[in-house]
Structure formats: C-alpha cells, structure tokens
C-alpha cells in the first residue's frame, strides 16, 4: 500500500515538473491586464480589442522563442509598469490586499466562536432548562395534545 502511495506521489511530482516546462499562452495572458484604454482593465484573454490580440500574438512568439512565464511577464512589467499585472504581486505592500480578506475571515470566525462560547456559558448559568430533542413518539403526543387543546377552545 505504502509503495503504491509513494509511486502515485512520485508520478504527481514528475507530472507537475513537466507541466511547468512550457508556459501556455492563455495562462500568461490571463495574468496581464489590457492597456488599450477602452476597457475597464480587462484581462488580456478577455479583452476583444486589437491591442489584446497583439499582446497575445507577442506572448505566443516569446513562448516559441523559449522564454519562461516569469521572463515574459517581467518584460511586460519593465515596459508598461506594474499596472500591466492583472493582480498585484504577492509581495511587499501588495501582500496586504491578498492577506486582508483571509485575515478578516480568521478574525470574524474567531469572534463568532468566542461570542458563542460566552453565550453558552451565560446560558448554562441562567436557570432556563436545556431543551431536549423530541423523539418521534413525543412529537406525535405533542401534536395530539395541541389538537385536543384546539378542540376544547
């Protein structure tokens, strides 16, 4: 069993190494935003303008010349500045944008759990008896009781 698992893991590793070999145009273009000026910073793969068409053709050419994804993207950043990146890089101050939502989730989750703990404690200290789930039989008797009470009204 262990050998099988190891084999699968190795295959996955080999596959991922190969998969990284040659970049795909769509992937690279998907990381750049169009600078045609007419669209709201659409991703190059999504913009229908001629500028986006030219960028895609250029990327394909660079891939055919053997450049890596990083090299291609860096060449665009060098030419057009950081704004050409469709999403901010995950480094430096830009990391804030990536981390903040997850941090908010962690804080929100923590606060809710802390709140629930506090509430449960306060509840157990109060005199109200804890509710118990009713079984099928009890539900049936409750319905009967309700019906009888209704009829008596």
């Amino acid at each position, binding site marked *: 069993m262990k050998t099988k698992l190891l084999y699968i893991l190795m295959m996955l590793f080999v596959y991922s190494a190969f998969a990284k070999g040659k970049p795909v145009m769509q992937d690279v273009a*998907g*990381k750049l*935003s169009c600078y045609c000026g*007419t*669209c*709201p*910073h*659409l*991703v190059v*793969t*999504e*913009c*229908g303008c*001629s500028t986006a*068409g030219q960028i895609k053709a250029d990327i394909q050419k660079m891939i055919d010349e053997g450049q890596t994804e990083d090299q291609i993207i860096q060449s665009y950043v060098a030419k057009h*500045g*950081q*704004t*050409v*990146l*469709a*999403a*901010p890089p995950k480094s*430096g*101050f*830009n990391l*804030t*944008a*990536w981390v*903040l*939502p*997850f941090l*908010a*989730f962690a804080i*929100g*989750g923590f606060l*809710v*759990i802390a*709140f*629930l703990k506090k*509430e*449960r404690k*306060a*509840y*157990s200290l*109060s005199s109200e008896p*804890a*509710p118990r*789930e009713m079984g099928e039989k009890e539900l049936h008797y*409750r*319905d009967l009781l*309700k*019906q009888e009470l209704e009829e008596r009204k």
Partner: protein
Amino acid sequence: MLPEIGQYTLIAAGVLCLYSMIACVTGARLRRADLVESGERAVVGIIFLVFFASGLLVYSLVISDFRLEYVAQYTSTTLPLQYKITAFWGGQAGSMLFWLLILSVYTVIALIQNQNKNRQLMPYVTAVLSGICLFFIVMLIFAADPFKRLIPVPVEGQGLNPLLQNYWMVSHPPALYAGYVGLSVPFAFAMAALMTGNLETGWIKAIRKWTLFSWLFLTVGILQGSYWAYIELGWGGYWAWDPVENASLMPWLAATAFVHSVMIQEKKGMLKMWNMVLVLIAFTLSIFGTFLTRSGVVSSVHSFAQSPIGTYFVVFMALQIGLSVFLLLMRKKELAPEARLESFVSRESSFLFNNVFFLVICIAVLCGTTFPILSEWVTGSKVTVSAPFFNKVVMPFAIGLILLTGICPLIAWRKAGLKNLQRNFVVPSGFALIATIILAILGVHHWLTLLFFFSAMFVLVTVYVEFNKGTRARMAMVSEGAPAALYHLVERNKRRYGGFIVHTGIAVIFIGIAASSFYQLEKEVTVKQNESFAIGAYTLKYSDLQFLQDAHKEVWQARLDVFKGEKQVAVLQPERHFYKNSDQPTTEVAIRPFWNEDLYLILVGPDQAGAGIFKVFVNPFIGLIWRGGLIMALGGLVILLPEFKPEFATSTASEIAAEEPAT
C-alpha cells in the same frame, strides 16, 4: 432664465430640508406636535421642488437646450428621444439629482406608511432623511450643478457615450439607484431608534421590508448590469469586477447579511447591536458606492483631487460614520440581548457564520476595489486589481456561503442534536453527491465545477425537501390537492418559502457560473467570404459583409450561417458601430441561445483585405445566470407581498412547526 429657475428651485428645496430637520427635532424635543407636523409637511414641499427641478432638467435635455453645460455634455440634437431622457442619470450632476428625486419620493412614502405608527421615531426619521436630501442638494448647488450655464452656447452637444445608448440604460441605472437610495430609509430608522432610545423591535419591523425592497432592486439592477455587459461590451463575459459593479455588490452583500440576521432579533431579541451595525454598513456602502463611481477616485487619486464632489462625500461619510458610532456607543447598554445563545450547532449560530461569510466577501471586494488607491497613496506606485485577484480571493468564501445556504435551513433553532442533523442532512447530501458523480461520469472533471455543482445541488435538494414536506403536510391536514396545498403553503408563510425561492435562484446562478467559467470555448478567426470555421458542435459560414450608415453612425454588419451537423440552426449578424460623436467603436454582439449553451459572436472588424475577423465563444449554461436571477427576484417579490391574514385560525401542529422563516 431657465437655468436660474432650476438653481433657485434647488436652493429653496435645500432651505426646506433644513427647516424640516430643525422643526422635526425641536418639535420632538419640546413635545410640540404642531412643530413636528410642520416639519413633516415640509417634506411635501421638498418633493414638489425636487420634481420641478428634475422636470426642468429633463425638459432641457429633450429640447437640447445647450445653454446648460450638462445638456451639451451628454446629449446631441441627433440623439434619439429615449436617450435624451435617460441622459438625466447618464452623467454626474444628473445622477445626483436623480438620487435626490428617489430619496424625496421614499421619504414621503415612509411618512405616509407611518402616519399612525412609530410616532416617536418619525420626527427623527424625517430629520435624518431630510439631512441626506440636504447633503445632495448642497452638492448639486456647489459642486455638481446640473443647471450650470455654458458660455458660449454650442450649436451641437457632445452626445451620449455610445455604450450607454442601449435599452438597458433605461432600466438598469434606475433599478440600481432605487436599491441604493432605498437603504437610506433603514438607516434613518436606525438612527432615529438610537437617538430616541426607542430600541424595541418596532423599528426593525418597519425597516425589514425597506431593506428587502432595496435588496430586490439591487439584485435586479446587478443582474441587468451583468446582462448588459454580456450582450453589449462584447468580451464574452458578464462580470469584470469593475469598480462600478463592485460598488453595487457591496451594499447588496451587507443588506443580504442583514435580512438574515434580523430574523434572530425578531425571533429572539438578540443581535440588536449587530443588526444596527449592519444597517449602518449597508447605508455607508451605498453612499461609498456612489462616491466611488462618481468622484473618479478609482481611476486615480489625482482625479479625486480634481473632482469637486469627492471632498463633499468624504466629509458627509465622516460625519455620518462618526455620529453613528457615537450613538451606538451611547446606547450600548440598551442594545443588550434579551436571550442567550445556547449551542454552537443551531440556526442562530449558523446565521452568525453566514454573516461572517457575507461580510468577508464584502471586505474582499472593498479591499480589491480600493487597493489601487491605497497603493498609490502609500507606495506612490499604481497597481491593477482585476478579475484574477477577485476570482481567487472571493471564490473560497462564495463556495462556503453557498454550502451554508443549504446547511442553515436544515439546522434547528436553539439547539440541534445529532438526530436532527442526521435526519436532515442525509438526503440532500446523498442526492447532491450522486448528481455530482453522474456529472463526473458524463465527462465534467474540473474539480471546481464539481464542487460548485455539488454545493448548488445540495441547496436545490434541501429546498425541494422543504417544499415537499410542507405541501404533503397540508395535503394530509387540510385535504387539498397538491397545487392548492403548495399555493397555500407559500401564501401563508411568504418569508420562509420566498426565502427558499431566492435560495433556488442563487443555486441556479452558481451552476451557470461554474459551467460557463470553466467550460467556455473561445476562438478568434480571420476568414474570407464563403469560408467556414468550426467551434464546438457548430460550423459558421461567413457569407456576407455590409456597410450601412444613418445620421448617427456607420455600421459594419456581417452575416454568418450557423450549422449544427448538416442542419442550419441560425443566421447571426454581428455588427461593429462607429458613432460620429465618439472615437470609440462599439460591438453589437450576435447571440444564439440554445437550451444548453449560447453561441456568442463578435465582429472584430473587416481586415484590410476584406476578410472578416471574428471572435466566437460557446458559453455553456450561461443563461442559467439570468434565469436564476429571475427566480431570485420572484422569491424577493413573494417575501414582499402583503401579509395574508386568515379570517379564523386553523393552524395545525405541522403548520406551526413549518411556520418559521427560512434563512
């Protein structure tokens, strides 16, 4: 003379707003009913004056009175009449006046609704709403004057942006504004409750429907906008995470969180403080959204500095947030809960997690939308934050939220035991899993699509089980046929079942998003006349190209015959328009919807040799997004319908058990 009449009308409205505020608050403080009444009546004067000013602007737009800068900026003599009218909300100053117009209408409606209710609150509600009106009037007078004169008077105007010359311009912005502005009323009630210390659940009842009303219009507005983008902007998608779109999504998220958590306050008297905070957040975001889209702050910090209205918005938001926080802190003790939560696993706690998810998505959207400004401000360098960021960051929370949509209604109130969970979870999760496995066997292997699909199916089965259970109970108890039982079930408990209909819509939208995002086919081709190309199951033959023109524009129109196998299934005529008043060409996309997918064709243009350049997409199940939207709107309408009051009580035990609101 006309421009001056417009300006004076606005000034008079402003004076009345100020009077209404002072009279209402003073009257309430001194217990002078006559003063309060006078203050409330001033609102009628405000609405009359604002209607008059709006009428003047629309009249000027219709007759192309280029003495007004606004008219010259957004219309031309050749512009069709309907777009001359829609130019009212097409530009900055006009859209502010439109905001004011809707707000004044809502103020009057809120007053009429509460003639004999919430009397302690109403003077303050009126004062707050008049205060918001005053803010917009001040801005209209000093910073974004729609009646500003243009000297010298031009012979022709600049015309409306061609992208806005579309049927959707008639209905999309008004729907969004109706939603945005509607959030002012709950805010006014919340402030009034805080100011008076009248914090019973009465005010909550008064605003629940207003929030739902705004929510419904925001939902419809957002979906219309996405459809507009899909058919008009011509990139095959429907949501670009553009700041303008995000601005409408954020208040929607906050309002959705509120309509969920408000149930806990109504049912248990808990979360009073939190609900108050949500109302304040929703309103702040609606103002912030208007600021974001109208001040130009998004394009650059520098354009914000040049924009005259930016500072007004910042000052107003600072005042509004400051006052809200101060009042909240002042009333902290009175907002203490009336009961305690007793379990981690209960409907109440699942609502709290639901709120966390809604607000985290809201924070993610806010963070992404404002980060370019923040980055420019802090580091001095601009960055772009577009779809890849939002998709990555929002996706995990969106999936979590749709799962919760299915889970919440299954968990019992107060405390859910293992039995409750087992009984309710086995069927939906089992069915959803089987459906997902079948989908995988049919060839869908993208794990995210499968995860989306599983979550959506889970919700759909949950909703089905609930409807089925309720209908059967009625059929057994009241001896009704299935359709009548279903009808009465929904009619008697609109909130619960309307909510379930909304959930159905959301699940359908999710399936549409998953299928069209991960299985879209795309191709860009250059073909000569009478040549064909294929995409998916279709072959498209480019048969003709025509050049047409009218008074406003020149049009390239291509004709393509579409075949599926041997059979011709459609003729598509995509166009490219060149408007005389604009350098920016626009596309008229040709779409042929099939039951399972859309064939979406864009004419990029004829090349110099006369061949046609086309971009073509096959978008699987994309239509589900708008169908789901219609279902959501239907659910919202069901919830908003007036309550049905039976002549005599015939509730049975199972009905009582069923009569609790959905999530």
